[in-house]
């Protein structure tokens, strides 16, 4: 196992069962219908890089992140995070990654930002004596100190996203997974989030950021490397410079070709 790799996948396959209608259930009670989310993903992400996984809705981005976060189990293939097998070492993996779940409802709305973070700090084995220091530290990092005693339901969408990062940073994880973090943010809030991920987490702190997005500009500007995923397969992977032949073609063209042909 290459110690410089934060993430490695080998032929990763994930099928989801499709729920059958009554008619189908009567006609074919035993047969199983399934849809393929990941169709043999081979991927390597280097430690300390900002890696953007670019693809349309339904391409398999979220599934891939959930496999890395041990929330979804693969059907075939292997996936390693920090050298740990997602199926065999799931507990250790949970102690070594941060997954910034962006779902607004994944926080307790009637609790304050601090109360939410203190709860998750306890669940992440942060001793009581260190809890306040740790929470203060991540709040300072995400610039949420002033909102700390406000209820979560009073937070703006941008603040909620930053609190999701704060939660992911509670454990000293070297890799942070983010799934479309700027999806519903206004331009200014989106810029703040992008800069935080790239400048603070990657450039300053040397962490690995695995960033799923469908925003080409975002990937082009902030990704050290980009992988384009479509229909559960990685179509192209490399630096922006390499993918665009040193600027000879645009990333948009590369993306369109990847979507159209399945490969470029």
């Amino acid at each position, binding site marked *: 196992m290459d110690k410089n790799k934060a993430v490695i996948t080998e032929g990763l396959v*994930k099928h*989801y*069962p499709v729920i059958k209608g009554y008619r189908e259930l009567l006609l074919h009670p035993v047969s199983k219908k399934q849809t393929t*989310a990941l169709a043999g993903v081979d991927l390597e992400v280097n430690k300390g890089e900002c890696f953007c996984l670019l693809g349309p809705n339904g391409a398999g981005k979220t*599934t891939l992140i*959930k496999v890395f*976060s*041990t*929330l*979804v*189990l693969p*059907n075939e293939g292997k996936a390693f995070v920090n050298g740990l097998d997602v199926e065999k070492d799931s*507990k250790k993996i*949970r*102690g070594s*990654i941060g*997954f910034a*779940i962006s*779902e607004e*409802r*994944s*926080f*307790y709305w*009637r*609790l304050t930002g601090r*109360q939410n973070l*203190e*709860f*998750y700090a*306890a*669940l*992440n*084995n942060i*001793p*009581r004596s260190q809890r306040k220091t740790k929470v203060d530290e991540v709040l300072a990092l995400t610039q949420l100190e002033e909102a700390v005693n406000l209820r979560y339901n009073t937070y703006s969408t941008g603040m909620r996203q930053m609190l999701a990062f704060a*939660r992911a940073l509670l*454990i000293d994880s070297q890799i942070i997974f983010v799934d479309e973090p700027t999806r519903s943010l206004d331009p200014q809030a989106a810029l703040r989030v992008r800069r935080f991920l790239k400048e603070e987490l990657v450039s300053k702190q040397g962490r690995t950021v695995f960033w799923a997005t469908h925003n080409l500009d975002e990937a082009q500007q902030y990704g050290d490397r980009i992988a384009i995923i479509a229909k559960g397969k990685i179509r192209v992977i490399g630096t922006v410079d390499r993918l665009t032949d040193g600027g000879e073609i645009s990333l948009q063209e590369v993306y369109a070709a990847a979507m159209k042909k399945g490969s470029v």
Partner: protein
Amino acid sequence: MFLYKLYSFLKRDVLNAASYKFAFVSSFVGIFLTSATFYFIAKLLSGSQSEALSPYGGDYFSFVIVGVAFSGLLGILQEGLPGIIRSAQMTGILESLLVTQTNIPTILVGSSLYTLAFSSVRTFFHLLLAVAVFGMQLGDINWLGSLLVFLLTALCFLSIGILSASFIMVYKVGNPFGWLFGSVSGLLGGVFFPIAVLPPWIKWLSYALPITYSLEGMRQSLLTSATLAEIMPNIAALAGFGILLFPISLVIFRWAVVKAKRDGSLTHY
């Protein structure tokens, strides 16, 4: 760390519940109304004492209040945990809990603590109100006996709650365990009337329900001044249910989580 985590769950739920002030207060008003209703029903029945009530002191009001107060504990625990899991599936909270370094049994027990604590307070309040306002007659209370019955009852009901939550985890809606133990317990568990009045052909089913032993033990402890030795058969039965059901429910819930991870349906509802 385990206790600290449990404390964190409890604190989270207390803070959350306390923020809904009206719901918090109205649940206690409901207790008063229930007690008053049974008080008048008991008054109506006071002239026609049933032989079946004599082992419990002969007073229907005391009999039924113990049943209603403790069956409330059953309902809240059985519906509470599946409700928490379903709500967590719908909101995404479940995923945020499962990516932490906390194991599933701790999440389950932690998530149930507030429900258990709150329903215990409600049960105590129910009894207190019945004694102070409606003149419920208590015997020489066997504190140790009632505590043991209470703890074992909570263990059994929690196990049933975990089984129900497992079903919700996989099938999303429907709660056959809750229905089976909840509705059937109301009819056959001796909540509103002694099981002695049931026809023999159905009475045997009562003995397959933990609540039967729970209510019997609690009535012995509170109403009939029974000794620990006299309550022991009920305690032993409850312990048997708990020892059997708790590990089974944990194994089944773990299986349900793995299945949901395989199906990718942790957040489906």
